[in-house]
């Protein structure tokens, strides 16, 4: 049995079996070598789900959703940035406009009072999270990000960075917060053209008043991190766009703040360079665990980077959620239209597609039990799991029936482990290969190798169709299901389309 990305290598032995299976209680299981019981093994899948739902919901506001990155072991995510009912209206009668907006007036209705750039924005960003604000130009996202470091003052509402309310602090304190807690990367790089790459990267530290030798050493570390070694003595004008933005990133990293604001940071770059930078950013984020707030108009970029995404339209945040939530459950027609042409295969993961397997046979059931289960579910093959729900392989009806006739009482010899499993966070694009190799639905396992569900091929195909045109595509889906192929999809979703 092979496992597609996401699963750590150490969890399967050379034969492809999980090495740390639970201690067997039934005689049929005793044949498995290298069995050992560890405390964590006793946890059932149900336990982890409970842990996830019991996760305290720290996020305020109706649209807010718990961060996707928050793993169950992270008890209470520390809030790095808190934005509460923030309004920004440009114009002389801004306060009046805010009063009307808060009573439900639209942006156009208050046009005569001022330009409402941001209307009632509320969200919280946990430490170590990548939070993407996505919207088209004029949606207010640039204004919003500039309120997070006090470049703009909100007309009303609160912005808290590390507990300090930016509206309350003095100019000196605000500068201290900018030096210590929140740095920024700009769309057009905003480098000093007359300073070398090294001096540019060291500039925030110069502002902080750090001694020259120390700040240059720190700048060097940051430049190494973004892969600019050897370019330190060049001027920004001698660098390509992608490299200039690396300098911008190195400068923000050298400041060594917890929060990193990125304003359309990769929008001015070529698509290929952009992808490279996105991957590098994710890598750096894993290494340094920065809190990143990323502004973009590119939905694919938002989906690739964001632990959570806030979609903005006309100054309002219309939806906050993980990329999957936004794709599969758009809050408004606007969001639905927006996500219609996203490359869903890169965003959707196995966990959002998987169904409950129709027929799962415990190892202890034996050939007789397996044949009964398959008969009841009207399938011709079934996945076999051990007591801890770890996937052991697959058994086929003909072999099981033959085994029953021959009087064999253990499934051990019948289980075939030539099954390719994927993990829950495997992206859709990587599931096509295993799905095409076998007529069986693709099994999905968690990190410990437990069977979490299966992805029938039909579900894979269905997922490719954007939800806006769902009605239109319904007949096609059932056609596929009714086709003779469905016989081969032995473990098809229980009760679906029957």
């Amino acid at each position: 049995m092979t496992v597609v990305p996401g699963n750590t290598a150490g969890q399967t032995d050379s034969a492809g079996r999980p090495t740390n299976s639970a201690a067997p209680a039934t005689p049929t299981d005793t044949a498995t070598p290298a069995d050992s019981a560890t405390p964590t093994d006793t946890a059932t899948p149900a336990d982890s789900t409970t842990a996830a739902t019991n996760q305290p919901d720290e996020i305020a506001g109706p649209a807010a959703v718990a961060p996707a990155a928050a793993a169950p072991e992270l008890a209470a995510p520390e809030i790095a940035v808190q934005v509460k009912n923030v309004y920004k209206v440009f114009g002389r009668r801004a306060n009046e406009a805010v009063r009307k907006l808060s009573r439900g007036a639209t942006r156009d209705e208050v046009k005569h009072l001022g330009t409402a750039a941001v209307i009632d924005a509320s969200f919280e960003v946990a430490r170590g999270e990548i939070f993407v604000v996505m919207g088209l130009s004029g949606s207010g996202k640039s204004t919003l990000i500039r309120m997070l470091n006090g470049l703009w003052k909100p007309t009303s509402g609160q912005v808290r960075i590390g507990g300090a309310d930016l509206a309350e602090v003095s100019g000196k304190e605000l500068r201290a917060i900018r030096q210590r807690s929140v740095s920024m990367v700009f769309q057009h790089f905003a480098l000093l053209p007359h300073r070398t790459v090294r001096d540019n990267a060291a500039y925030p530290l110069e502002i902080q008043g750090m001694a020259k030798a120390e700040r240059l050493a720190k700048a060097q570390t940051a430049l190494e991190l973004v892969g600019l070694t050897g370019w330190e003595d060049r001027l920004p004008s001698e660098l390509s766009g992608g490299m200039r933005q690396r300098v911008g990133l190195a400068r923000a990293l050298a400041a060594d703040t917890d929060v990193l604001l990125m304003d359309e940071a990769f929008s001015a770059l070529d698509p290929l360079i952009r992808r490279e930078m996105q991957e590098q950013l994710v890598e750096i984020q894993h290494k340094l665990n920065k809190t990143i707030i990323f502004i973009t108009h590119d939905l694919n970029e938002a989906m690739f980077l964001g632990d959570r995404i806030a979609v903005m339209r006309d100054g309002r945040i219309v939806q906050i959620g993980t990329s999957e939530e936004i794709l599969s459950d758009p809050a408004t027609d606007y969001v639905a239209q927006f996500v219609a042409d996203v490359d869903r295969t890169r965003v959707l993961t196995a966990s959002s597609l998987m169904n409950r397997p129709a027929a799962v046979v415990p190892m202890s059931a034996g050939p007789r039990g397996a044949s009964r289960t398959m008969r009841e579910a009207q399938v011709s093959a079934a996945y076999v799991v051990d007591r801890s729900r770890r996937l052991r392989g697959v058994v086929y009806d003909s072999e099981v029936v033959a085994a029953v006739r021959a009087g064999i009482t253990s499934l051990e010899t019948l289980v075939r482990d030539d099954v390719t499993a994927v993990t829950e966070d495997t992206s859709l694009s990587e599931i096509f290969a295993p799905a095409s190799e076998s007529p069986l639905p693709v099994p999905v396992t968690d990190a410990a190798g437990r069977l979490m569900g299966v992805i029938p091929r039909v579900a894979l195909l269905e997922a490719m169709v954007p939800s806006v045109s769902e009605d239109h595509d319904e007949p096609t889906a059932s056609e596929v299901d009714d086709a003779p192929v469905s016989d081969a999809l032995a473990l098809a979703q229980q009760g679906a389309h029957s």
Partner: protein
Amino acid sequence: MITAATTSGLPRLDLGDSAASFVTWVTTTFSGAFDQIKAVIVWFYDLIDLVLSAPPFWSVVLVLVLAAYCVKGWKLAVGSLVGFVIIATMNQWDNAMDTLALVILSSTIALVIGIPLGIWAARNDAVSRTLRPVLDFMQTMPAFVYLIPTVVIFRVGVVPGIVATVIFALAPGVRFTELGIRGVDKEVVEAGHAFGATESRIMRQIQLPLAMPTIMAGINQVIMLSLSMVVISGMVGAAGLGRDVVAALQRVDMSLGFEAGVSVVILAIFLDRVTSALAARAPVSQALAKAAA
């Protein structure tokens, strides 16, 4: 002060008389202050003139040619040398040095006043709005007109010439400085704020260096305007080439007029090329030039 009717039939508005009585009032009220200003200007002028005129011709030429070589290169140095020799052979060297002293002093004063005003205007929209019509007025008022009140206030000599020149040449210093600072990439200034820099640091390390090419162009303009004005101020008794030009005009002396005029042209080209070369040596200009190469 509406007195007789005009040819258009409208009543006569004596704006000129008002201006004249205002100048008279200013002269009598602040005569003490003006005497002080006059003394300071004369002192500075004499000092600069002494430095330029007292040493032997060749030593001054050597210094100027060396300066041309340093800021630009040997071509400008050779050209300057030829030009200065031509001035000397026309026996206009002393006049040229007097004029150079006037230009140096008046453009320095104009820049000392103009650049801070430009910075202020760049940072404050109200100041910018107020200054704009004032600068328009100063720049478009015929240059000769400035000589009248300055003569009334300071009497004939070098000082009214310098003061009129400062007023006339002030505008581009203010305008170019404001333009340069306002033209600095907003994002770069934002970056300064975003990393917690103070206003004064942003001005020193971001806005002024990035605006420097434009400010240098303004300095060049101030110097060129000063040169044209110090020639005109020969009419009120300022020393230098201007006095010969005015004398040639009065006597219809073609040869003197030509020689003084050519000397002005040579001096103008020298000053223009040197200041342009200085502008190109600003760090930001060099960085951009490197990118283009």
